[in-house]
């Protein structure tokens, strides 16, 4: 394993700085302290988008080069992406209850986020279900591409559907907040912190995947036992003794 300890240090450092900034800025005018949720909500959704694009890149690159590294990248990035999407949705829901007095509403953006979450949850479930690394890599890559190709279609259909029907509901998600400059600065710090955290998580996850792959490789070398060694001659004496 390469010495990448500095990534964790950087992640913790930027995170702490961003946290300090988030707590330091004055409360937002309409939302008050609740608005501080934004520092988690928005960066995590942005980084989730980045993560899924990286998954696409990893999938395509794997299919072209057949290099295991790209598969590890795709898998690790999707995992972190699902984590971030989940966090963003959870934050949003916690936020929605006091502001809109419901947990959820069928706003196009919300629906899209949730569908994306499930598409990549499916991607991870697929990876989990396949034992053979080669098979897993290829099938996951194909589904990764299929998933990303579908996202624009899903986006388009959901947005179109929403614009056709202006919601008859009592809640209208209105996400425009008045942001003054300290607020925007803190937001950018949060984005930087999340980016570093994303990189750290992906790097660590890839390290782990590489370790697993190395273990496989090692299993295939001379020192390890073949599958065959699990089978021995029957111990007949006992069978006969038994009778």
């Amino acid at each position: 394993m390469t010495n990448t300890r500095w990534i964790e240090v950087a992640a913790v450092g930027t995170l702490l700085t961003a946290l300090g900034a988030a707590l330091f800025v004055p409360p937002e005018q309409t939302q008050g302290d609740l608005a501080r949720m934004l520092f988690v909500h928005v960066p995590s959704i942005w980084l989730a988008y980045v993560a899924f694009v990286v998954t696409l890149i990893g999938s395509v690159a794997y299919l072209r080069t057949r290099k295991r590294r790209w598969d590890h990248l795709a898998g690790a990035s999707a995992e972190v992406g699902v984590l971030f999407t989940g966090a963003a949705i959870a934050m949003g829901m916690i936020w929605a209850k006091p502001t809109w007095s419901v947990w959820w509403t069928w706003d196009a953006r919300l629906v899209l986020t949730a569908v994306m979450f499930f598409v990549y949850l499916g991607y991870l479930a697929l990876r989990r279900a396949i034992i053979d690394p080669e098979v897993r890599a290829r099938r996951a890559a194909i589904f990764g591409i299929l998933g990303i190709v579908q996202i624009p279609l899903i986006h388009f259909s959901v947005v179109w559907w929403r614009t056709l029907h202006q919601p008859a509901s009592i809640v209208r998600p209105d996400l425009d907040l008045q942001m003054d400059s300290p607020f925007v600065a803190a937001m950018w710090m949060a984005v930087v912190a999340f980016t570093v955290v994303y990189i750290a998580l992906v790097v660590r996850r890839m390290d782990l995947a590489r370790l697993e792959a190395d273990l496989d490789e090692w299993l295939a070398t001379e020192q390890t036992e073949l599958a065959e060694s699990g089978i021995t001659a029957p111990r007949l004496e006992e069978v006969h003794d038994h009778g």
Partner: protein
Amino acid sequence: MLPGSPVIALRRIGARIGDTPILRDLDLEVGPGEVIGLHGGNGSGKTTLLRLIATLLPPVSGGGTVLGADLRTPARMTIRSRIGLVGHEPGLYPDLTLGENIEFAARVAGKSPERVAEVLDMVGLGRSRHRRALQCSHGMQRRGEFARLLLTEPDLLLLDEAHAGLDPQAADLVSGLVKAVRNRNGAAVLVSHDPSRIGDLVDRSVVLDGGSLHDDPGPPS
């Protein structure tokens, strides 16, 4: 079962699968300590006959007893646990490990859990205990079934092509099991397409043809 009374006694048995008649007017008697070979062409009904003897397929005509229980009454359910059958396909749960498969049998049959490792060792699978059945080769799965037979120690042993898929070492398991059953005064029916393979083990052979049994005419000249 009275001592000395036959283990299998079938009289004018007829059997069908769905509407297709498979066995007709079949007679068979196998005494305690007796081992017979069952031969017959493909599709002659050997597997069907074994399932009938194992009480899994009720006869449509005729009657008989197995281990003293009448095949046509619910009494036949009570002797099921004394019958051991290995068929063409392995009766293992693919997602469970070999060990878990045998543990299930041990728990149901009321055997001590320590026996599981013992019988797996006996069939040479001691070191594959934690491998899922799905990940085992054909012969390993068959060995797994033999491990179950070693555990449950049935009084009536029914083996459908006992040697198929077993390597020469494992083939000795069949002899061992058959001898053990004989010693217990039980009985065994061995189906085989290769009479020479089971010749040493059986007391006599019968041939299934046209839905009923005939004495083995011996090897064709």
